């Protein structure tokens, strides 16, 4: 793409802007991953890279290839849709696993099992005594 002489300046400016925006936000999320103190704070930081970081670079790629090939190139939307769908799922599974691990070790930084679970009927009365 760099060798293309007929690449217009406005498209180059747009591609550069979105690429810098996406990578800068990804770096910001990674720095947050490095600097936050607890795991439950850190789990928020990389989503900056998976939302606007991915979005910015995918927009840059879409604009660049659309201008370069003189036809709409939108197959980057596949990656965008996939990342948007899968990131909350994986991070929620990870946060639940971490919460489970912290609770089984009786860590004081997380609420215990009883504090958040719905009160279930006590198993003391046997089923035969109930009417």
């Amino acid at each position, binding site marked *: *793409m*760099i*060798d*293309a*002489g007929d*690449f*217009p*300046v406005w*498209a*180059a*400016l747009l*591609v*550069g*802007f979105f*690429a*810098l925006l*996406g*990578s*800068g936000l*990804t*770096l910001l*999320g*990674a*720095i947050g*991953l*490095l600097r936050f103190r607890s*795991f439950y704070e*850190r*789990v928020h*930081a*990389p989503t900056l*890279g*998976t939302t606007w*970081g*991915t979005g910015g*670079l*995918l927009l*840059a*790629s879409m604009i*660049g*290839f659309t201008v*370069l090939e003189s036809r709409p*190139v939108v*197959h*980057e939307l*596949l*990656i965008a849709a*996939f*990342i948007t769908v*899968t990131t909350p*799922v*994986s*991070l929620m*599974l*990870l946060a*639940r*696993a*971490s919460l*489970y*691990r912290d609770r089984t070790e009786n860590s004081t930084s997380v609420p215990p099992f009883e504090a958040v679970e719905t009160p279930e009927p006590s198993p003391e009365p046997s089923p035969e005594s109930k009417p």
Partner: protein
Amino acid sequence: MSSIILYWSITISQLLLVAAMACCAVRIIRGPRAQDRVLAFDALYVCAMLLLLAFGIRTGATLYFEAALVISVLGFVSTVALAKFLMRGEVIE
């Protein structure tokens, strides 16, 4: 003019992504517990996918797009498997 803009913006963008990957690698090494390492690995493969996309913009080849798509799919599967392992102690029950 446009080639200069593209060259420098993509180069700086790749440098920023490499710095982000370095931050994730430091978190993988330092991370006090296993879930921190899995989280940093998740961020690391996203950064690698974005680096491949930036490389694709730089070279103008659509080949790297497919590699980025495969990285995103396999990264999601591996993160879910690792989270399941942390939760249950085994992946397939």
